[in-house]
């Protein structure tokens, strides 16, 4: 080591090694306290019975046994309904992706005013889900709602209105959720279409490809990054569905629109008392469903990251 080096401070000598950690520290601290540690705490709480105020009572896996109906008890009915509704959300929410692509293709033109059209089509995504929920619940009002009026023209009638009927309520809410989600997917595809290589399109055109064939073999492969992001945000959005349910039906009628996220909230923080342990157990189940997707997302991103290097 030269004398000049020893004269420099310890920090100066290790600057490149230490700086990243100093820069990371605040973000890591916040993230650990509010996100990482709470995940562990929720696991811990789910093994207890707890009203949120007094002492926790250790119950082992009893919450999970009750939830999933392990042993000689039946599966929690509310949990079952919520779980199936979550699946409905997941599957139907994915419709936002083709619908978004369709609208994007429709709007990918250059005529006067098209920019304004694009932004107005995107509009629903910017509005809060609470307002979307309110708007749709008025749209669905029994008898007086525009939806009932329109299906009335075709001689149809849903008893109790869309949201008052246990058979249709969940679908009504999902449709409301699809509205902003489709707008989101549309904007992803519009930006993606902008980046499509015009030379490839022209070459394919010379080869006689057009219409659906062109879309499938030439355009869609180039839209893969957009599709991936659309898939990620749609899955996350479907599993996060809470606001709409809370605003539109509050879980009803007869609990038919509950999903896991809503049921968890209801158990932990509702007027029926604070059953934090049981709620945490539901959250853990939801977490594991999500984890499957998270691992897949991360794996895809990791592959991309490796490719980029």
């Amino acid at each position, binding site marked *: 080591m030269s004398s000049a080096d020893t004269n420099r401070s310890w920090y100066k000598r290790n600057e490149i090694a230490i700086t990243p950690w100093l*820069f990371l520290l605040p973000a890591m601290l916040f993230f650990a306290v509010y996100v990482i540690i709470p995940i562990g705490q929720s696991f811990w709480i789910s093994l207890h019975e707890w009203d949120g105020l007094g002492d926790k009572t250790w119950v082992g896996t009893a919450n999970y046994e009750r939830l999933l109906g392990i042993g000689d008890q039946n599966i929690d009915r509310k949990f079952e309904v919520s779980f199936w509704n979550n699946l409905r959300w997941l599957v139907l929410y994915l419709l936002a992706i083709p619908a978004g692509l369709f609208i994007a293709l429709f709007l990918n033109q250059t005529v006067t005013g098209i920019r304004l059209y694009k932004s107005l089509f995107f509009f629903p995504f910017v509005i809060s889900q609470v307002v979307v929920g309110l708007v749709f619940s008025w749209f669905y009002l029994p008898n007086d709602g525009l939806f009932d009026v329109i299906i009335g023209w075709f001689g149809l009638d849903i008893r109790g209105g869309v949201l008052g009927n246990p058979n249709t309520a969940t679908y009504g809410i999902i449709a409301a959720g699809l509205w902003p989600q489709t707008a989101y997917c549309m904007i992803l595809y519009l930006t993606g279409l902008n980046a499509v290589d015009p030379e490839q399109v022209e070459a394919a055109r010379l080869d006689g490809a057009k219409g659906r064939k062109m879309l499938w073999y030439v355009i869609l492969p180039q839209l893969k990054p957009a599709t991936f992001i659309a898939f990620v945000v749609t899955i996350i959005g479907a599993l996060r569905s809470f606001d709409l349910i809370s605003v539109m039906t509050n879980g009803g009628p007869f609990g038919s629109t509950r999903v896991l996220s809503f049921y968890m909230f209801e158990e932990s923080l509702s007027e029926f008392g604070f059953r934090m342990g049981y709620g945490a157990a539901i959250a853990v189940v939801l977490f594991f469903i999500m984890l499957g997707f998270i691992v897949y997302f991360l794996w895809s991103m990791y592959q991309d990251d490796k490719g980029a290097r």
Partner: protein
Amino acid sequence: MFPTPIQKRPRSAQITYQAFLPVALIVWLLPLLAVALFSIKPDADFTNGNYWGVPSSFEAFTNYGKVFFESNMPRYLLNSLFITIPTVIGAVALSCMAGFALGVYKFKGNLLIFFIFIAGNFVPFQILMVPVRDLTVSMNLYDTKLGLVLFHVAFQTGFCTLFMRNFIRALPFPLIEAARVEGVAEWRIFLYVVLPLMKPALAALAVLIFTFIWNDYFWAVVLTQGPDAQPVTAGITEFNSQFRAAYHLMSAGSIVAALPPVAMFFLMQKHFIAGLTLGAVK
């Protein structure tokens, strides 16, 4: 370009397209147009069953006047503002630094930390709910704006770091190396070399986080409960119970609540879209 530009199609197709555009738009925005219509109707229209017809009188000023002067709405709006702005500043500041660390330096655990940030950003809120509420209560921050801000900053940092790191990765690295050769201190490189180049990313994130936080409902319900701290998303349900079944006022309130992020979007459209696509779709 795909689909085939309409200009290359026959004249009739062009006219059909131009005519169909506004029709499609109206159908698409029908629920919103309905609310806008509701908000300018007089109360009497609803009692008479005139939900969807022409308003019998134009009452926009009375309705919106009531929202602004006879309810807690202005308060909720201010709360939202005082929650959203600090969160935007906090999350963007933290993630700028974290993104710089993860994007510029090679060290053990770099990718792991990065992936923890991404993964944390995807977890369901519910698994955080009980502990975060507990933590907030024990810090005496339950039902305060600060309590919400702290959580939002922490949670949004995950998403913002993902964005910032990828953005910094795409910057020309020789620039940083040149600065190092000149003997510029690392923190100065961040401040004077990297930060000025990050302006588009900063703008994109700021607009996006503003919208996310403004529209948050779940955490508002979990961490606050009264007009002292509740943001407008939670306040609107309160507002609605005050004016139960008064559709003209509820829809005027909803429009007021939805307006700030909408304005933000139209003013900063380019940045907003850059943020939404995570910068991955260029």
